[in-house]
């Protein structure tokens, strides 16, 4: 039972990292980026291609792959910042469905529809106590989620760029009138989240199913995680991701409810939405 719950932690850490990225995007550049996991997937696949086809060393291939993901994300950000700067969050978010589908198709065309032969950067069990094994991937993803959330928080609170970003997200017009240049800043946010999600996916991809579709669809549990924090709070996004992963691990151990596991992120989303809307009457909620 406990082992099952712990087993879900690796996935939970990944959901948490992606959830943090989603939260960041939603707060700073007013978008729910559906292509978040897909850009990471594409970066990771490029890394495999660099290593296998160009015979680059693994570290260099990985760095280039991460850059590819960052640039792709920045390109989507450029579109959002240039042509959809005045659009509503809904419109901007809907736009990201395009890159999601495009990236999945592109990876089928460029890399084939077979899973990629990743060489693991980290693999194997890290340590175990009382018969409960904790894999290195689990340690890496959970740590990455927490570190990302903390670093982002420090940057936003303590640095000049952070202040500018907050100003832009809360009073965009005022900030621009004060001379803060919004476009480069928001494209930078896109770039950074692209880089972070590619790194997370590269850590996890070698240890799980790694075809284009299953990696891109990680966006669903990630969105569920971000929803716990209402797409505003980073700490709750981290907790949401980890709870979701642990629940997934637990549920698979109990035969009676194992079937639910596939729908867990959706259940999570529905329950959260019902809870957050509990005091609203129908008209007001709309």
């Amino acid at each position, binding site marked *: 039972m406990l082992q099952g719950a712990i087993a879900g932690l690796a996935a939970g850490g990944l959901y948490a990292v992606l959830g943090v990225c989603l939260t960041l995007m939603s707060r700073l550049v007013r978008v729910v980026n559906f292509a978040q996991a897909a850009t990471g997937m594409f970066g990771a696949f490029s890394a495999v291609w660099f290593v296998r086809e160009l015979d680059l060393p693994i570290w260099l291939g990985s760095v280039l792959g991460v850059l590819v993901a960052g640039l792709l994300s920045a390109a989507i950000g450029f579109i959002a910042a240039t042509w959809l700067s005045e659009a509503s969050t809904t419109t901007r978010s809907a736009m990201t469905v395009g890159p999601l589908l495009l990236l999945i198709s592109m990876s089928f065309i460029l890399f084939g529809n077979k899973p990629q032969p990743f060489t693991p950067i980290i693999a*194997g069990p890290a340590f175990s106590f009382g018969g409960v094994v904790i894999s290195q991937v689990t340690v890496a993803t959970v740590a990455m989620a927490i570190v990302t959330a903390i670093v982002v928080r420090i940057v936003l609170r303590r640095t000049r760029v952070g202040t500018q970003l907050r100003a832009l997200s809360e009073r965009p017009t005022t900030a621009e009138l004060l001379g803060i240049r919004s476009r480069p800043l928001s494209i930078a946010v896109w770039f950074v989240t692209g880089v972070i999600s590619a790194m997370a996916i590269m850590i996890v991809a070698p240890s799980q199913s790694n075809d284009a579709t*299953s990696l891109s669809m990680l966006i669903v549990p990630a969105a569920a995680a971000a929803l716990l924090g209402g797409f505003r709070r980073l700490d709750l996004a981290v907790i949401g991701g980890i709870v979701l992963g642990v629940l997934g691990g637990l549920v698979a151990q109990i035969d009676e409810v194992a079937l639910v*596991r596939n729908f867990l992120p959706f259940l999570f989303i529905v329950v959260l939405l019902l809870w957050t809307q509990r005091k609203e009457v129908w008209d007001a909620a709309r």
Partner: protein
Amino acid sequence: MNKRASGTAALIAVAALTLAGCTGAGDGSGGDGAPIVVGSVNTISGPATFPEASQAAAAVFDAFNEAGGLDGRTIDYKTLDDKGDPATATASARELVGSDGAVALVGSASLIECEINAKYYEQEGILSLPGIGVDTGCFASDNISPANVGPFNDMTLTLQYGSEVLGLDDICILLEIAGSTRPTYQAAIDKWTEITGKEPKYVDDTVPYGASDYTPYIVKARDQGCKALAINPVEPDAIGQVKAANAQGWDDVTWLYLTSVYSENFADAIDNAGAGIYVPAEFYPFTDDNEINADWRALMEKNDIALTSFSQGGYLAATYFIEVLKSIDGDITRESVSEALKSMDPIENPMVGTPFAFGTQNTAGWPIILKSGTNAWEKVADDWLRIGE
């Protein structure tokens, strides 16, 4: 001649050629010298694809046509893509059988086609000889007889190999269920129990297709004391399962998989195979450089088709079909072809363990293993493993 006039002339020429082509094929199987229309319905696009079987069959038919065909009559092989979509699969079958006047369907490989079109084929009195039968329907209809063993007999074989040859106890079965395949898998497991008297430690049929992380299922199996896992996944899922066990440090588990994971891509992706990944290959192992596969290999390499079990299936289906076609006296019509297939003598081929006759099930696999660190499949037997032997 000015540019426009030459363009018009070219157009007219093309139109004339097209029309001539139409009248040639239009009377279907009637006249002497008209091509024999053979069809196939395949899943070529979509998340799970099976393109190699019909490509291989096409290569066989092309070679047959080049060598003069059937006394000068060529085979016109039409392949359609059902996109894994039921409506398209239905429409494709009607196009091939209804309008194109196919005499038989050969070398198909589709995720869903058999189950959807079996009734229609019965109605129209047409027989289908799929290269790779995937869904339950391929193994349940009198009008469909695939060249391959199929996932259900494959499951019985892999279990039999695990318990009888490897002497494993505590085999756990994890099933990925799509559509209505659950009862058929149960029948396959029951058949194993009947033959060997062994029972699975437990059967978990909630394992999802295409999950991103299989760790919880692997952890559960380990906690319950499973020594071996028999699973029926598609290739990406199998990689995920083995990697999940690697991450847990579970290095003494034996994997009993099906032919669906038998590929070089899979071998490349797996470094740590635990106590070994065993598969009863449905056709003579293609990773083994042997005389038995030489003709198939040469043809595939010439046509640049992937060397996989799927292309072996397509190749065999087309080869069987040509042999039956040659045995027919008189007109080649849908009726005469169906008649000939139903009454055919079994065809022996060293690429399969069971001689092929329409309607008999293939029940033999050649055991192969993928060991840790080798990244390559090896044979572990000198002969076919047959169900019940």
